């Protein structure tokens, strides 16, 4: 192969790679949820897992290197997701056309995540009777699930929940991660703000 032929072949390869990268980006943008390598392979028309992995990791890096409000993250189980960086959430929440959870159900969710597996009765005791509604909402959004029957039902968070916050799927690890997050949020200056509310 001559040098110019080699150059051309390189260029074609590069072009294909760029197009596949854009398809992968398109898929993550449209889905709004974590996608696994198989799905991303379908979208990019790539059978090789190795290749899809390379594409996805390149996209993660590309987004890291850009000064942007969006991020592409790798989650457990070689799954990838595109989302808004959390630092911008508060400023643009109201523009979302999708129904979002308000502070009440989110507090119930935090509590469940922190104490899980937890009996439904305990959640109601601590969060009040209105939290029956929260549980329903959280279950509909597939953020929690209930095990067992009747009053003895234990509640746990789903994998979908873990993915949302980029937490481990393993309960012990996740609870340790949450503890760190909540300790951060429980710093004196943050508390002072809360009291003022």
């Amino acid at each position, binding site marked *: 192969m001559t040098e110019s032929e080699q150059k051309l072949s390189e260029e074609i390869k590069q072009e294909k790679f760029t197009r596949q990268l854009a398809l992968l980006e398109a898929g993550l*943008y*449209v*889905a*709004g*949820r974590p996608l696994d390598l198989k799905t991303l392979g379908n979208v990019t028309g790539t059978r090789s897992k190795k290749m899809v992995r390379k594409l996805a990791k390149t996209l993660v890096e590309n987004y890291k290197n850009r000064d942007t409000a969006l991020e592409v993250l790798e989650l457990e189980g070689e799954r990838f*997701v*595109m*989302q*808004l*960086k*959390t630092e911008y*959430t*508060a400023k*643009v*929440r109201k523009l*979302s056309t*999708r129904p*979002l*959870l308000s*502070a*009440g159900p*989110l*507090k119930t*969710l*935090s*509590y469940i*995540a*922190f*104490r899980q597996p937890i009996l439904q009765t305990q959640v109601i005791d*601590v*969060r009040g009777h209105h939290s029956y509604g929260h549980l329903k909402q959280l279950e509909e959004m597939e953020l929690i699930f209930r095990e067992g029957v009747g009053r003895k039902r234990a509640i746990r968070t789903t994998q979908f929940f873990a993915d*949302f*916050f980029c937490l481990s799927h393993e309960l012990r690890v996740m609870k340790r991660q*949450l503890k760190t*997050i*909540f300790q951060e*949020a*429980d710093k004196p200056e*943050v508390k002072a703000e*809360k009291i003022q509310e």
Partner: protein
Amino acid sequence: MPQTTKKPFYFKPPLSVLFEIHKLEKVLPWDINISYLLTMFLEEMEQQGEVDFRASGVALESSSTIYLRKTKLLLKLEDPPPPPKTLPDFIPPPMFLPLRYELSSTTLDNLLNVLDEVLKGESIRPPKMPQPILPAPEILPPLDLYLLKIEDHMKTLYAQLYQLVGTGELIAFSKLVAGLEKIEATKTFLILLFLAQRGKIGLWQEEEIEELYITVIGDPAFDGKRTEII
């Protein structure tokens, strides 16, 4: 007989505590072992072979005072202890979910697929016009026969319209003929024109809008105004 100056034995410690009544309130009752002191007092008296009833009385009173104080303190201690303050469980702050755009799966087809069903819900429809007795079609076309009965149809439609504007609203033509076959809708339109010509109703339409609106003349809700812009 020489006067004895010797202090009675009970004025010495530890028995003295029972006989210094003015100090009794200041000592801690738990520091005094009444049983021990009284036994000692009795043994000493027995040893001396002299029974001092006055001293015995004072010892008894002091003992009962100390005993009473002990009892009071004990009762105080036995007050049910306040329930241990259980701290409310820690409720972590709400976790705001990160925002992810998601393309909606709803398409224009989805939107229009449900329209059929909704249009059926346009509940207010004119009652079925009485079917004219149809002569053989080759003699008279059905529409002509319909026109012959125009007076009757005008009455029926006017009554219906009057009833409808009883709610104080405009009547949209589309609503009036919703669910009707095209020929029936056309007939209704023709009768409306006849009614308008007679001044029984008002018809109006805005330039930009395809909808035709009907008002019933003299209806209090519109005070006879024939044009109105919404």
